[in-house]
């Protein structure tokens, strides 16, 4: 190593340190913005160092520079535009697309590195990392695009299973592994491309059978894949910054995957095998069609319960976001608070379509973050709560999860049924993702308020205002 190379590596270490410090600062909403800035600074440092390295090498042709500058400018413009315009409800799709391009770029780096090395002689260990990079990167690329399509509604959200699907997946695995083994013994670019194509097809086949509400797990997993692919790219080109950044992202994605799978009490294998659940939209059924008696109430009665409570917990679910009712909820909560009623939000880990999604949606509606409570924090509070207001959440409130023998048995739930009274806002008696009757609805303490969430919020707010105003 020349002293120039050494100093460049040290600059990369500095960049990697910025990433770690940046992520560390994200441990509290108060310091998180600074964390993002520190992390950005790390990226700028790494970018400048790479430019210096390129100029110093003096081997970049005019075409090479043009390719990099034009490519970088186009990518930055696309990234900037989508990041500025994206709706917060569409955040899972965006993150999924970012996973796709990250994984794709990592795979391309490895393929290019391989072409280059093929001329100079490929080393065995490099081939292993190239293979891993191409495999993981390609699966991430196509899998993330399908996941984004499902979230956007371009690809149907329900599990897509077809006859022979598993067989196709198995065949793809065999092809990929076969080509990979061949590559370990013989240097061959076509074999590497076969691995890439099989992995691309595998990614599609992997995500298609997974249902919409399992997307938080899928996105987290693909995030972990992207990180791993980037780390492998780092091994291929021998760059520490890529290895460290990739490992950090891999760890983050891995932790989130585990948290999400635990929150559904399902194993990763079970989720990846797919076929579970019914997707997003439920066929509408009339109230009370499950044969059980439920108590239905109107806006005025619900407003009376809320106005004379001293502590209210709001339980938002994905249905809230689907109905675009987050601003209405914030408005209702504000009205209640102005009259001295304590309001907090109980957020189940899988309340949105990606980890932490519901928090962002409520933060956008101006809900102060200290009111957003995690499941473990809020569960003991329900017993001291006068009214629990459930909006668009279903399976995560179903007490059946506490018993054995139900498909959701063992899933951690919000202890909504411990509250003194419960109001559930729902369009109809339709089932949740798991396709189950919710026992909470037939609890004598529960009243059902059948309405669209957005309209219900406006009516409730108006009714509460006349009562207390």
């Amino acid at each position, binding site marked *: 190593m020349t002293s120039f190379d050494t100093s460049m590596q040290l600059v990369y270490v500095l960049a990697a340190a910025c990433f770690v410090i940046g992520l560390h600062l994200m441990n509290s909403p108060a310091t998180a913005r600074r964390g993002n800035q520190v992390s950005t600074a790390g990226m700028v440092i790494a970018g400048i160092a790479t430019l210096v390295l390129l100029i110093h090498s003096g081997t970049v042709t005019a075409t090479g520079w043009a390719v990099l500058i034009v490519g970088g400018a186009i990518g930055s413009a696309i990234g900037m535009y989508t990041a500025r315009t994206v709706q917060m409800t569409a955040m899972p799709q965006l993150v999924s697309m970012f996973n796709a391009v990250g994984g794709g770029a990592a795979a391309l780096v490895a393929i290019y590195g391989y072409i280059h090395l093929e001329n100079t002689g490929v080393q065995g260990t490099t081939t292993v990392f190239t293979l891993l990079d191409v495999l993981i990167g390609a699966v991430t690329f196509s899998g993330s695009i399908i996941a984004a399509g499902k979230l956007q509604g371009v690809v149907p959200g329900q599990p897509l299973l077809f006859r022979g699907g598993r067989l196709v997946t198995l065949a793809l695995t065999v092809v990929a592994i076969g080509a990979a083994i061949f590559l370990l013994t013989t240097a061959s670019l076509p074999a590497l491309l076969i691995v890439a194509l099989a992995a691309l097809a595998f990614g599609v086949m992997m995500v298609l059978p997974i249902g919409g509400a399992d997307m938080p797990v899928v996105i987290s997993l693909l995030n972990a894949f992207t990180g791993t692919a980037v780390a492998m790219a780092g091994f291929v080109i021998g760059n520490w910054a890529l290895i460290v950044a990739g490992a*950090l*992202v891999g760890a983050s994605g891995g932790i989130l995957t585990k948290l999400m799978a635990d929150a559904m009490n399902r194993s990763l294998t079970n989720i990846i095998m797919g076929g579970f659940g019914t997707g997003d939209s439920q066929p509408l059924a009339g109230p009370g069609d499950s044969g059980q008696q439920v108590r239905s109430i109107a806006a005025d009665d619900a407003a009376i319960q809320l106005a004379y409570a001293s502590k209210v917990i709001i339980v938002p679910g994905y249905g809230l976001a689907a109905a675009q009712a987050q601003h209405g909820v914030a408005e209702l909560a504000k009205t209640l608070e102005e009259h001295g009623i304590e309001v907090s939000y109980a957020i189940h880990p899988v309340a949105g379509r990606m980890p932490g999604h519901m928090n962002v949606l409520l933060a956008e509606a101006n809900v102060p973050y200290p009111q957003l409570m995690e499941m473990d924090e809020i569960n003991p509070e329900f017993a001291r709560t006068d009214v629990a207001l459930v909006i668009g959440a279903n399976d995560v409130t179903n007490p059946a999860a506490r018993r054995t023998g139900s498909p959701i048995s063992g899933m951690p739930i919000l202890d909504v049924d411990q509250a003194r009274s419960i109001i559930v806002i729902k369009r109809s008696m339709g089932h949740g993702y798991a396709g189950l009757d919710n026992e909470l609805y037939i609890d004598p303490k529960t009243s059902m308020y059948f309405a669209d969430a957005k309209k219900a919020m406006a009516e409730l707010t108006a009714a509460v205002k006349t009562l207390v105003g």
Partner: protein
Amino acid sequence: MSTALVTDLTIFVLALLVGIEVIGKVPATLHTPLMSATNSIHGIVLAGAMLIGVTSHSIAGYILAFVAAVFASANVVGGYVVTGRMLKMFRRREVQK
């Protein structure tokens, strides 16, 4: 195994452990911004795309480097901007309108 590979593997394993330690402390409230922040961090693959650009002297090489550069820069810029946008919304108190 070469010394370089052993060094690389050591860095990888330690970074993984640091990542688990640091990210385990991020509250669930911030998991979405965390994901978009890690999105931009894995955009570091841009550095890789730039470095392979150095050695490319063929059409195929230029195309690969170009696509990689578009992907990775979208990752970096988009990730940071959207994370900043989200984090700006997290307030301790409600803003007075």
